Structures are given as structure tokens and as C-alpha cells.
């Protein structure tokens, strides 16, 4: 392995990461204020609306922070494992993608601040934002496509130069993640380009609401796997190296990524279980497909804990749980992602409840759902990304993660978990009581139900403030890392156990996997989509804010 990270590639990676942290900070300010508004602690000054904050929070966190961080991390992974540096074509595409996504983010944020696009990050029709908001989304998506092509180009280049060799695991995972993203974003591209843009410019008078929602959720669910798969990359490949162990099984890791590719897309109806116009049969079919991702999740859980236990025992741990003490708890590179993994256990269980067909009625559009994804993406994924950032920034800038920054990182992780315990915990409980999500401060004319919810809103606000403090600590660490002493930081990449099984070559038969994915999508969506296009109704647009 090359000892230092390629400098030009390092700049590209760092640019993505810093942009992501910038979005995170802005989104975090919005999030904290939302908590305070909804608990009735403050009212917003200067005519800023709660729903404006909510739109900015969703777009900046769910779309901008995640996408920029992921692309930065994936580029670092392919640069590191597939040749030691990016090819010219890949690096150029990386910068073009960065520029387009950056332009989209700036344009979108300005429109949200101008109150021209208070439609939340899901932009459900027939709420009609400024057409330039949808163009901002196009820039974001097209930019990410080009970044994806850069990943594929590097993969092809590596294949050409390394003939029959097995693709490095991290590089393979980066390719699968980007392939899934290309297939998934077709839905959002279709609805934005064919429906929203012509309609918002006034070229068409009406929009097919049900169709637009369906195309959105065709994209909206794999979006969450696009967040999760890079976290899995860290858990499968990076963490074993950090704890001084090895990867349990290369083949199982690849199998779980292929299963995620296949089963994360044809499942969007489980977000639409409570709506009219889709027959119960097709909803249930997609519920079954949704539950198939349980399989790669179980494989992942087994593999990770097998790595922990095997490593602990190799270091002399005894008894059933002696290996727990052999884990490097004081190393933030391990501690932050590990807390993310732990949180994923209740988070995943909550997800099963949400997707359980008719049971969804108990939680649909309540704060339970908000609590759920603040555990999955905002804790499991976010903590893993923070943990990656702590070594990736020094690794690509030729600096070191100092002991002081490591300690701060541990504190940041603990604060984050604590804040989330209050906030997400209160969201889950009051959601079960029926407290709706995405709602400004209200008591529904002093209804007894909503008076009962108020203490939970206070807990959410307290959690939000703790999370914001944690976020400030994170920013402090990022600044500290950019100024820390020059030196060499390892890019941790795990190796496979010597006695692990050989990896079948089947996993890189891309044509096959794309075909299976396409068949599943066609089966799950064709009939309902035909019904919506042929029998759907059209709506004019509304500006309700």
C-alpha cells in the first residue's frame, strides 16, 4: 500500500467533507431552533417560518450533508484501494460533480431562505415551489451522477490494469453503492424533469399527484440505503483494522451488498401504505420485498460481532463476553461508529414496525417516524461518518489525529448519544400517543391530547440543544484537525482472515445484478404505475405558505 494519500485526491476528498460539515452546521442550527419553537420556548424573529426551517433542515441534512460526505468517502476509498490515486478522468468527474452539487445546494438554500420553496425536503405535489428549487434539485442529482461515473471509471481502469484479480472489498462496495444510487435516482429524476419542472414553469397546468409521490418514494427509500451502505463499508472493512482484527468474511460482505442493491429499490410503497389509489396487493408485495433487507442486515450483524469476538479471543479474552473488554473503547475511530452500530439495533427494529403493512397506521406521520430516522440516519449513519472524518481528514491532509482531538471526539460522541436519547426517545413515545410530525407549535385549541404531548416537546428541545452543543464540538475538532501537526495517519483497511472462504466471482457479474434488480422493479411497479398513469387524476398547483 502507498504510504501517503495522493495530494490531489486529498483535496477533492477534503472539499466534499468540509462542504458536508458546513451543511451539517447550518442544518443543525435549524434543527435546534425547531425544537425550541415546537416546545413553545421561543418564537422566530424576522418573519422566519417554522416550515422554512424544517425545509432547510431536511434538505441540508438528508440530501446535502449525506451526499457530500458519502461521495468524499467513496472517492477516498477508490483512490486508496484501486490504484493509490485517481485517474485523471475520475478526478475531473469528481470535481464536476462537486461543482454541480455545490451550485444546486447554494441555489436551493437561497430559495428556501427567500420563502420561495417552503415545501419540505419531500416537496410533495401539488405544493408548488419556485421552478428554480426543482432545478437546484436537478443540479444536486446530476452532480451525484457524474461523481458516480467517476467511481465507475476508476473501477474500469483498475480492472484493466489488474486483469484477473479480485476487486478490493472497499472498492467493490463503493461501486455497488453508486450503482444502487444510479438506479434509485431515476425515479426522482423522472418526477422532477417530467412533472415538476414543466408544471412549475407553467408549461403544463396540472400534475398527477399520486404518480409524483410514487416516483418520489421509488427514490426515497433507497435514499436511506445510500446513507447506510457507506456506514456498512466502515463497519465491515475499516473497523476490523482499527480494533486490530480481521474481516470475518469477504464473500459474506459482498453478498450483503448485492442483496442491498436488489432489495432496497422495489419497496417504496411501504412509505405509501396509508394512502389511496394503490391496491392492497401491491402494497403487501412491496412490504414482503422490504423485509428481505432483513437478510443482509442479519449477515452484517453476525459478521461484525464475529470479528469482535474472534479478535478478542485472539488477544486472550475468556468467557462468553470477555472479548467486549478487548475492544479499543478509548479510540474515537472505533467508539463513534460502534455507538452507531449499537443504536442501529433499536433503530432497525423500529423500521420493521413502520414497514409492517396495516400496523403502520399506529405510527404513520407521527413523531415516531421522525424519532426513527433520527436513530438510523442521524445517529447510526451520522456517528459512523463522524468517526470516519476523525481519521480521514488527517489522512488526506498529511496530519495526525492528536490525543486531545481523540478525547474531544469521544466527548462529542457521548453528547450526541445523550442528546439523541432525549430527543428521539421523546419523539418515539409521543409519536405512539399520536403526536404528528412536521407540525409547528400548536395545542389544537387546548385539546387534552396535545397538552399531554407538551412535556415530550420540552424533552425534544433539551435533546436538540445537547445535540447542537455536540455539533459545535464536532466543528471544533474539524478545525483542530485542519491545524494539527504534520504526520502520517493510517487509512485503516482490514484484511480477511486467512482461513476465510474464497470469494465467488459471481459478485462482479454486473449485468446479472442489474438485470435481477430491473426484474424486481418491473414486477413491483409496472401494474400500479400503469394504473396511476392511465387512471390518475390531475391537480393544479398551490402555494400554501
Amino acid at each position, binding site marked *: 500500500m502507498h504510504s501517503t494519500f495522493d495530494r490531489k485526491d486529498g483535496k477533492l476528498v477534503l472539499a466534499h467533507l468540509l462542504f458536508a460539515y458546513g451543511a451539517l452546521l447550518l442544518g443543525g442550527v435549524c434543527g435546534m431552533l425547531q425544537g425550541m419553537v415546537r416546545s413553545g420556548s421561543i418564537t422566530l424573529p424576522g418573519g422566519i417560518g417554522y416550515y422554512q426551517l424544517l425545509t432547510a433542515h431536511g434538505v441540508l441534512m438528508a440530501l446535502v450533508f449525506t451526499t457530500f460526505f458519502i461521495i468524499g468517502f467513496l472517492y477516498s476509498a477508490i483512490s486508496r484501494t484501486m490504484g493509490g490515486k485517481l485517474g485523471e478522468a475520475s478526478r475531473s468527474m469528481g470535481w464536476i460533480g462537486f461543482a454541480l452539487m455545490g451550485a444546486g445546494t447554494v441555489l436551493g438554500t437561497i430559495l428556501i431562505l427567500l420563502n420561495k420553496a417552503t415545501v419540505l425536503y419531500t416537496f410533495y405535489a401539488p405544493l408548488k415551489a419556485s421552478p428554480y428549487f426543482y432545478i437546484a434539485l436537478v443540479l444536486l442529482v446530476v452532480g451525484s451522477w457524474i461523481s458516480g461515473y467517476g467511481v465507475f471509471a476508476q473501477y474500469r481502469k483498475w480492472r484493466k490494469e489488474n486483469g484477473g484479480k479480485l476487486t478490493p472489498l472497499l472498492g467493490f462496495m463503493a461501486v455497488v453503492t453508486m450503482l444502487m444510487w444510479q438506479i434509485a435516482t431515476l425515479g426522482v429524476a423522472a418526477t422532477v424533469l417530467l412533472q415538476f419542472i414543466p408544471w412549475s414553469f407553467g408549461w403544463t397546468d396540472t400534475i398527477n399527484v399520486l404518480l409524483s409521490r410514487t416516483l418520489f418514494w421509488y427514490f426515497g427509500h433507497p435514499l436511506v440505503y445510500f446513507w447506510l451502505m457507506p456506514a456498512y463499508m466502515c463497519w465491515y472493512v475499516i473497523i476490523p483494522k482499527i480494533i486490530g482484527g480481521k474481516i470475518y468474511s469477504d464473500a459474506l460482505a459482498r453478498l450483503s451488498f448485492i442483496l442491498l442493491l436488489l432489495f432496497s429499490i422495489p419497496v417504496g410503497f411501504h412509505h405509501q401504505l*396509508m394512502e389511496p389509489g394503490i391496491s392492497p396487493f401491491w402494497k403487501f408485495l412491496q412490504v414482503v420485498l422490504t423485509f428481505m433487507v432483513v437478510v443482509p442486515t442479519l449477515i452484517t450483524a453476525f459478521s461484525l460481532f464475529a470479528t469482535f469476538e474472534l479478535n478478542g479471543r485472539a488477544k486472550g479474552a475468556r468467557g462468553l463476553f470477555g472479548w467486549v473488554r478487548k475492544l479499543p473503547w478509548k479510540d474515537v475511530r472505533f467508539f463513534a461508529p460502534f455507538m452507531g452500530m449499537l443504536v442501529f439495533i433499536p433503530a432497525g427494529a423500529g423500521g420493521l414496525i413502520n414497514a409492517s403493512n396495516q400496523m403502520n397506521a399506529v405510527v*404513520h406521520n407521527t413523531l415516531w417516524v421522525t424519532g426513527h430516522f433520527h436513530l438510523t440516519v442521524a445517529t447510526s449513519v451520522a456517528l459512523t461518518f463522524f468517526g470516519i472524518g476523525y481519521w480521514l481528514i488527517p489522512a488526506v491532509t498529511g496530519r495526525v489525529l492528536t490525543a486531545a482531538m481523540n478525547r474531544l471526539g469521544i466527548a462529542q460522541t457521548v453528547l450526541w448519544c445523550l442528546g439523541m436519547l432525549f430527543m428521539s426517545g421523546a419523539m418515539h413515545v409521543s409519536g405512539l400517543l399520536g403526536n404528528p410530525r412536521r407540525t409547528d407549535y400548536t395545542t389544537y385549541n387546548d385539546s387534552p391530547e396535545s397538552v399531554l404531548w407538551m412535556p415530550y416537546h420540552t424533552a425534544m428541545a433539551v435533546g436538540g440543544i445537547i445535540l447542537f452543543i455536540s455539533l459545535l464540538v464536532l466543528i471544533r475538532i474539524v478545525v483542530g484537525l485542519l491545524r494539527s501537526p504534520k504526520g502520517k495517519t493510517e487509512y485503516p483497511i482490514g484484511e480477511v482472515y486467512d482461513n476465510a472462504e474464497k470469494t465467488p466471482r459471481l459478485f462482479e457479474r454486473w449485468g446479472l445484478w442489474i438485470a435481477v434488480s430491473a426484474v424486481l422493479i418491473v414486477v413491483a411497479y409496472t401494474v400500479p404505475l400503469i394504473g396511476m398513469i392511465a387512471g390518475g387524476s*390531475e391537480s393544479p398547483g398551490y402555494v*400554501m405558505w
Partner: protein
Amino acid sequence: MHIHRLEKIWLVFGMSMLAVFLIMLGVSAFAMGMQTPGSAHAHALDPTRLEETAPFDKPGVTQTGDKEYEAVLIAYGFGFNPDKIEIPAGSTVKFTATSSDVVHGFEIPGTTVNFMVLPGEVSHLSYTFDKPGEYLILCNEYCGVGHQSMFAKLIVT
């Protein structure tokens, strides 16, 4: 591909649980009628012409049988028409709802009444109210600046 014995046990157990879950959901949905709401049959109507489209030309509550009522509702920004429903305890209410503008939600906290209301589509759901009291009907999908003030009351006497 060889898989470790313990992992095989783990996966077989996991997948069996998965099958049990799904069968339970499927049986209770399709055989026992605990269906997802609003999806009994797909309709399409013109959301701009509700005043001339039955049954939404006459929103309100009508008695359809012994302790059976149908509530025809229009959700709009920012309220429900009618904004008050009164029924005796033990009544089954069939909600039939649509929207005259954007997407809304229809939720009664403390019950399993929770569904989306889309312009151009009709949502159906039946629920039996056994306990007397004042129930809150609220919109749980963001619909604009007045979303938090969109609610109605259902009174069971």
C-alpha cells in the same frame, strides 16, 4: 460458498422469524380484513370540481344503518368540512375523504384512524368508537403555513 455453522443457525432462525412476521401480517390483512386504509378501490375524480361530484357535493354525516354512519369529509387548507362529527357510542363510522387542494393527513390520536388524503383520490376507512368522549381529528401531513391549526372534532356520546 461455505457459511459457518453458527451463522447458518442465525440466518435460518432470522429468516424463519421473518416468514412468521410476514404470514401474520398477510393473514390479518387479507383474511381477517385488517387492511391498509383508503385502498379498497382506486378512484379518480377532479379535485377542482368537488361541489358537483357525489358524494362530496354534500359533505356531512349520514346514518346508514343501526349504529352505522358514513362521514363524507373534504380536507382543505386549513380545516375539515364538516369540522364536527357527533355519533352515539358503539357506532361504526365509515370515513370517506378527499382533498380540495393539497395533500393532507387524517388522524385521530388514540385510535388506529390514520390515513392520507390526496386530491383526486378517495380514502376510505371504517372504525368503531366504543368509548364516549371528544376525539381530536388532526392533519398529520404538512400542507402549508396553517397546517398546525388544521383540526376537527369527533364527539362520541
